[in-house]
């Protein structure tokens, strides 16, 4: 992968983040129903458990014990749970006639953009410190 200027990365990511927030606010403002903001908060925090447990792994890897592996598993489990929650939340609101179909689609796409921004941002600055590639 060619080396990208960090400034370009940050500008690109922030514009994607702004597009995500635009979709969310649009979904909220068109119908005067601000539940999509809750969904975007969930999407924004969905990558946090992986980051926390990776921090644990990096600091205590001198004794690569089984507990570190379990912590990573727990982080992945929670992160996947939160991401699925973020996708399921607008669908449930749509099913219960609280959000319209357009607002649901806008919320999910905006939330995925926000989540993608967070993940890409974290992986960029991991890749700077060490030579680790992006892994699932």
């Amino acid at each position, binding site marked *: 992968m060619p080396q990208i200027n960090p400034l370009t990365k940050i500008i690109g990511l922030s514009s994607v983040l702004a597009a995500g927030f635009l979709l969310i606010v649009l979904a909220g403002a068109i119908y005067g129903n601000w539940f999509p903001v809750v969904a975007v908060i969930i999407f924004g925090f969905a990558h946090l458990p992986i980051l926390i447990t990776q921090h644990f792994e990096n600091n205590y890897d001198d004794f690569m014990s089984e507990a570190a592996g379990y912590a990573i598993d727990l982080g992945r489990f929670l992160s996947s749970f939160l991401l*699925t929650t973020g996708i399921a939340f607008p669908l449930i609101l749509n099913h219960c006639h609280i959000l319209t179909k357009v607002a649901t689609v806008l919320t999910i796409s905006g939330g995925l953009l926000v989540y993608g921004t967070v993940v890409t941002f974290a992986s960029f600055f991991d890749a700077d410190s060490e030579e680790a590639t992006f892994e699932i």
Partner: protein
Amino acid sequence: MDNGRLFKFSAFKLPNSATVRAVGVYLSGALYAIGFWVMVDAAIYSKSVNASVVHVTFIDWIPAICSSFGMLIVNSIEKSRLLSSEGGFGSSSTTWQARLVLFLGFSLLAIGISGSFLVLILKFLVKNFTSFPTVGMGVSNVVSNACIMLSCITLWIVQNLEDDYSYSLAL
């Protein structure tokens, strides 16, 4: 050259255990979330747009709660305690405790899945609520518990994989 290969064509290479482990854990979390939110969806639906006389009450939540506790118990057990009955660190009393607690966990899972069918049959089908938007609340109960059980099975299988991964990292 490669003796550890399973298929004749190298196109069918099985992914290594670290990838399988990561994907399995992600899948398990997603399945648990689906199970949980399907149940919450039934409750919100019952409160907001339900036109029938049946409503989701605390009874409907009991199977999901049992399944969740069972999943928590089953996946908290230290797996190496189960097999080592002699030698090593685990004395035989620890092994028996582990087996007993594991049995409790699997019983809770079984209670969850059978209890959801019980709720579906006793609360909906027997009382002739068989048209779809109403019986959907019972069906979602079954779907929820099945998803939680699948999530538990996935997590269990993935954690019991032979991991050459952690050894290769330790060396």
